[in-house]
């Protein structure tokens, strides 16, 4: 709450107390945060209004009362910046097209207010070595797992990924300890194999990742890739300077905390990286494993940006493939039914939820999720004429009779 308001309230309270003389106020302990909560627009015990109805003569009501509905439009003082991923020939790269994300002027899919300019985009996970994946994901990639270039191609050509996320896990010292130079060669290979933009990810090793990302940034110079990720635990300065030098975008990763996200963004901005080259990853927890935190985190971040907090006005990355970490997604279980359907659906529901909460770019593993999410986005962006809305071709008002048994 703004200080002025608090002050005004305190003043009113004092006036009230004075008027009432002996009102004992010490017992009311209300801290500032509580006040914000308390003074939310509407609060109430779960009380129901008793008969507070207008006493209208029932007989008089033979016709419907008229009512108008006008869309409650709001204006937001801030907006999310647009981030461009990938560079075409004219921009100095070799990608077929640029994927633009962000640029929101309102909350996700409040299109009665305004259609946000860029659609959510989808990237699929590719690894630079065969790794253990859930069976229902693996079955789609078994033939290409030996070669990240083929794997990437399959994602783009067969499954419609807008972007490829190349995860260079073999660089981990405890896995294969592949050198940054060799990892960069893989990046080059994949850049040649597909014309979609790339997200380049590390192994999560604090020491190795910055070195690897730097080498990758150099070979991919001008392609406007996404470097994943800079965080407070690694040498983010090295990553930022490579991104600036070679023209890439950086993922700012924080584990589940809006204030830490803000701080990290600030650190990157202070290094001279423009907002247009930053994507936030505030952590996506799987459905059933903390997705509740993610929903509120993303909604708060998006709202803060729209309300003018310029340190939080970057697009949001949602690695929804984290859904596969949930045992319900991969575990065999008689009780839960076939995991071949359950797994992708777990990822689909995780992704839909983060999409509604404010995600802009989605990392996915299963082709079914990509297909469903793309279809949904298509629907949510499709123009419809109002006539059609009230007279839809599929008569939804016939559902009572037209659903089978």
């Amino acid at each position: 709450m703004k200080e002025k308001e608090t002050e005004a309230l305190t003043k009113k309270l004092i006036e009230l107390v004075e008027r009432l003389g002996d009102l004992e106020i010490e017992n009311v302990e209300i801290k500032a945060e509580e006040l914000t909560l308390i003074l939310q627009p509407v609060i109430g015990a779960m009380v129901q209004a008793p008969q507070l109805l207008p006493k209208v003569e029932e007989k008089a009501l033979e016709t419907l009362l008229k009512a108008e509905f006008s869309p409650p439009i709001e204006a937001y003082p801030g907006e999310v910046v647009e981030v461009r991923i990938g560079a075409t020939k004219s921009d100095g790269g070799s990608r077929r097209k640029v994927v633009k994300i962000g640029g929101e002027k309102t909350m996700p899919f409040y299109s009665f207010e305004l259609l946000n300019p860029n659609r959510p985009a989808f990237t699929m996970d590719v690894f630079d070595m065969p790794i253990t994946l859930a069976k229902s994901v693996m079955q789609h990639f078994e033939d290409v797992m030996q070669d990240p270039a083929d794997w990437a191609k399959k994602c783009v050509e067969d499954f419609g990924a807008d972007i490829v996320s190349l995860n260079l896990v073999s660089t981990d010292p405890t896995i294969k300890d592949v050198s940054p130079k060799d990892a960069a060669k893989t990046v080059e290979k994949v850049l040649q194999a597909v014309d979609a933009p790339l997200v380049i990810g590390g192994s999560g090793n604090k020491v190795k990742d910055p070195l690897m990302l730097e080498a990758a940034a150099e070979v991919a110079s001008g392609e406007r890739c996404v470097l994943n990720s800079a965080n407070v635990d690694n040498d983010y300065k090295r990553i930022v300077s490579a991104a600036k030098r070679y023209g890439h975008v950086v993922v700012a990763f924080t584990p589940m905390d809006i204030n830490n996200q803000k701080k990290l963004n600030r650190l990157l901005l202070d290094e001279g990286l423009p907002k247009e080259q930053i994507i936030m990853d505030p952590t996506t927890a799987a459905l059933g494993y903390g997705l509740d935190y993610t929903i509120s985190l993303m909604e708060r971040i998006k709202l803060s940006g729209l309300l003018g907090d310029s340190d939080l006005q970057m697009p949001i990355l949602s690695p929804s493939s984290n859904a596969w970490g949930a045992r319900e997604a991969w575990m065999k279980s008689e009780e839960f039914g076939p995991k071949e359907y359950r797994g992708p659906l777990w990822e689909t529901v995780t992704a839909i939820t983060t999409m509604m909460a404010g995600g802009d770019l989605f990392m996915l593993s299963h082709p079914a999720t990509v297909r469903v999410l793309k279809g949904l986005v298509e629907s949510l962006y499709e123009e419809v004429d109002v006539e059609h809305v009230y007279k839809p071709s599929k008569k939804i008002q016939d559902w009572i009779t037209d659903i089978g048994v």
Partner: protein
Amino acid sequence: MPEKASLLSIYSYLPQTNCGECGEPNCMVFVSKLLERKANPEDCPPLKKPKYKEQMAKLVELLVPPIREVKIGVGEDVVKIGGKEVMYRHELTYHNPTAIAIDVSDLMDDGKIVERCRAVEAFSLVRIGERLRLNMIAVRCASKDPDRFSYVTSLVARSCKLPLILCSFDPKSLRAALEGGQVANRRPLLYAATEENWREVSELAKQYNCPVAVFALNLGSVKSLTKTLKARGIQDMIIDFGTHTEGGLLKESVNNSVMVRRVAVQRGDKDMGYPIMFIPAMVWMGEEVDPVTTSYKEAYIASLFLNRYADLIITHTMEVWSLLPVITLRQNIYTDPRKPVSVDSGLRTIGSPHEKSPVLLTTNFSLTYYTVANDLESAGIDCYLVVLNTEGLAVEVSVAGGQFHPSDIKDIFSSVNMEEKVKHRKLIIPGLAARLKGDIEDSTNWEVIVGPRDSSQIKGFLSKYWG
């Protein structure tokens, strides 16, 4: 804008005598209790006197949530929906989880109807110590025959105790079901009043004191209906503006939901202050629907609307793989975003452990505790489980954030006489707490064995490392 509930506005309606009859030292404290929803206006006895009648009414109105709480059904299984006060769950915890109704067609065979009803009622999944259920049955009058509908409704009512939704746009069928089906005393939801049938349907709702859904594709018409029905004395309504599941129309349903909620919560539009319902079962319309892709679609359409203010949904599939993610999402959306759900710390016994049984350690975050306890139980492991108070945080989170205190383990050990319960001195810790191995050894003087990262692997682990 309606008057806002604030310290002062609430205070102004109280007797202001500081008599203490409410059990609070003075009126102001009572105000803060009201605001925290820990008290009701009725808890102030003086306010119930006739001379305060008007003030009481005003106060009650002030405290009513902008989205009316509607009850469907009676008794133990009553379903409460609505009662929402905010647009986003970080503002104030959402109440009253989305009710899930499964449809029953009156064209199904009697046997199948009974079986389906029993299955819906028996459906139960335990997640994080919470029993997750399906809540209602929606009986569809697909036959268009009031007699059949009435017969099937009574069959459904006899087969299960769940609250019912009676679905027909024909008032005759609704009346037949209410009267002939003998379910009026169960307070079913009448679906639905429309611009065509509102007179008859609202009569029924009044006569039998049932909640009623209003259905229209146009929000102006929806508002006309709620306004009219309210003027006719009906309070318990639910709004259905159509669940589009295809093409660009889907966007309209999403938009409508946001707009309806926003005018009610932020702009005080009382005519739109009712719970919202969606019907993902819509995806099953038509002749040839593939059961797998349609169950898949139904689940993600339901999830989409769960994320956009659905207070009630009607679905069709009974496939657990399709219902599980929806029910899990509902549980996620309706947890309190401000405090982790936790269990008591201390020692638990799983199965019947003896002096040679393993001793395992976990944290008191509900999700962690129940996952581990279930894994141990379903694997039939007899053991001791030490539950550490990590302020309700998961293993890795508490290790990273410093709420995982090795010294607390020692305290638990001594308070429960652990050294007498088992002969050995070996403690198995979660794989994700590996880096605290040394610290735990130092503080307990027990040998610490680092277990697997996922508790589902404990069984295999024990058979290898525990004789």
